């Protein structure tokens, strides 16, 4: 019996059990005046009992809360938690702005676009940016990169890592001028070392890996982003039973969402673009169908606008739809260089 563990006098314990309170859960959300009334004891004693109970099961929650039931949080606490976690920058400030600061942890973000628009480049940039140290406003975490298409190139990742280190040292110089000291001592090979790379060649491997990731991240708690590039490739082969495909994809999406929430990390999945016959004409949309489009928290569509690459925030629970342009340079993803995107206010 759980209440047997409480450090209270035997008579109080007897009163608790005879009144029907045998577990800590039954004592949760009970005020001391209610307990005092039920047990016919003074309120101070009731308060002590409740304190002892909350201490006993609140031991693994460093932030004290009045709720004993595990997992329940007030919305206020959730807001604080969300605000305290930095987002992962995409290295393009325009893009970060429409994303509300960057890619958010605890959420699944889907990024899709035509071939050659820069999805893999974005993936590599995020895998590098998640490693920005906490002193410089980043997450200081590691990345898991799941490559299904074979488009990840180590030399490109090295190139982006080197450029990122240069930017970080410039930033530390700036901070030094403001008398804030932090050291950036990272080598490009260290950055590569912190990317856990998986190459998978069939859809069964893909499903098996996503199932395995839970255990993997349990052993590597500093992973802060999981990138799947791309989730579509192996699922566009002929599935005789489309319902099976939908079930498999749904299961995968659920696992990824659970990963994101449980370990407080960001999940970014890349999708391919395809044409959909809508209202008599072919329109561009993302692959895998309508049921898949419900599975992610945020959706960003990358497309061409003339000669510029644009990102359009299509789905988000808290931000409004907006579009921003970006470019892919030898240093990675950066703001686009054109000038006419800025609106001048009179």
């Amino acid at each position: 019996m759980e209440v047997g563990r409480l450090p209270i006098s035997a008579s109080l314990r007897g009163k608790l059990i005879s009144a029907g309170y045998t577990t800590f859960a039954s004592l949760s959300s009970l005020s001391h005046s209610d307990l005092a009334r039920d047990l016919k004891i003074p309120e101070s004693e009731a308060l002590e009992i409740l304190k002892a109970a909350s201490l006993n099961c609140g031991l693994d929650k460093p932030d004290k809360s009045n709720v004993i039931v595990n997992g329940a949080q007030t919305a206020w606490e959730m807001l604080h938690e969300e605000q305290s976690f930095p987002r992962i920058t995409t290295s393009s400030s325009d893009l970060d702005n429409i994303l509300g600061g960057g890619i958010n942890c605890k959420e699944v973000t889907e990024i899709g676009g035509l071939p050659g628009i820069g999805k893999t480049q974005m993936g590599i940039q995020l895998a590098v940016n998640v490693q920005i140290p906490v002193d410089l406003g980043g997450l200081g975490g590691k990345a898991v990169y799941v490559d299904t298409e074979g488009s990840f190139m180590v030399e490109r990742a090295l190139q982006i890592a080197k450029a990122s280190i240069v930017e970080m040292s410039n930033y530390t110089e700036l901070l030094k001028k403001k008398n804030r000291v932090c050291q950036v001592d990272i080598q490009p090979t260290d950055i590569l070392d912190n990317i856990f790379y998986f190459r998978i060649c069939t859809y069964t491997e893909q499903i098996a890996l996503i199932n395995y990731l839970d255990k993997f991240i349990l052993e590597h708690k500093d992973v802060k982003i999981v990138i799947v590039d791309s989730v579509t490739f192996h699922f566009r082969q002929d599935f005789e039973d489309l319902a099976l495909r939908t079930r498999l994809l749904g299961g995968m999406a659920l696992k990824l969402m659970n990963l994101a929430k449980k370990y407080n990390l960001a999940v970014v999945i890349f999708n391919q673009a395809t044409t959909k016959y809508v209202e008599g004409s072919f329109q561009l949309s993302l692959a895998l169908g309508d049921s898949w489009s419900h599975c992610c928290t945020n959706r960003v569509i990358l497309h061409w606008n003339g000669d510029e690459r644009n990102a359009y925030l299509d789905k988000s629970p808290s931000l409004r739809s907006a579009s921003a342009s970006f470019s892919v340079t030898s240093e990675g993803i950066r703001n686009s260089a054109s000038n006419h995107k800025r609106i001048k206010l009179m």
Partner: protein
Amino acid sequence: MTSENLLTRPLIAEKLTLGCPLLDRCLGGGLPCCSITELVAESSCGKTQFCLQLALSASSLYLHTEFPFPFRRLHQLSQAFRSSHANLVAINPWEDVYVDAVHNAHQMLDIMPKIESFIESEKPRLPVRLIVIDSIAALFRTEFNNTPLDLKRRSSLFFKISGKLKSLANRFRSAVVVTNQVVDFMGASDGANGVKVGNFGSLHSLGRRVCPALGLAWANCVNSRVFLSRNEMVVGERVSFTFVGQSIKEVFLA
């Protein structure tokens, strides 16, 4: 399942040289291994010549879909190759090129396991590091009508074939080169509904606006795309090469 440590891979990916230092420099050393590179060009721009030369610079498997296979030209190139590489005195480069014919897409899918066991086996003298398919467009020309059902079947074949090729490339650390044809470009390429693939809205060859054949689905299946074009020449040779895909640059060779 274990993650691969990126530092165990070579920091600069292994590349297959094209034979021309200028082109190699544009492509960052040559065609990358472990990925599929597509060569897109109008007919008679030089795709097969490129492929024959590439096939000679490595132990390769050449799958041709258009007939006849230019054996004599291969022999000729091989002689030239041998004379320019002094260390190949006793070896004929063309003995390391394994040629096979493929007639349609289903056959292509069927022979994948045979290809895998061939490369694994003792039969090739050197490990096969290049697989060439010349051309992929010809495989899909005859059996598919323009109905949604047939196009869907065609798309699923694209992904199946490309998936198997990529896993072969990954397993044997080899390069895969696929050639494709062009079709005339119709319609808009702008806005969210325009289907612009790659960095250039439309490519030009011999004065026409063209785009690669086989459509958007196939474009999702390759890792890099190289466009070869030919301009009408007035005086002297002028061939331009436009690169689309992983490294984007445009080079004009005078």
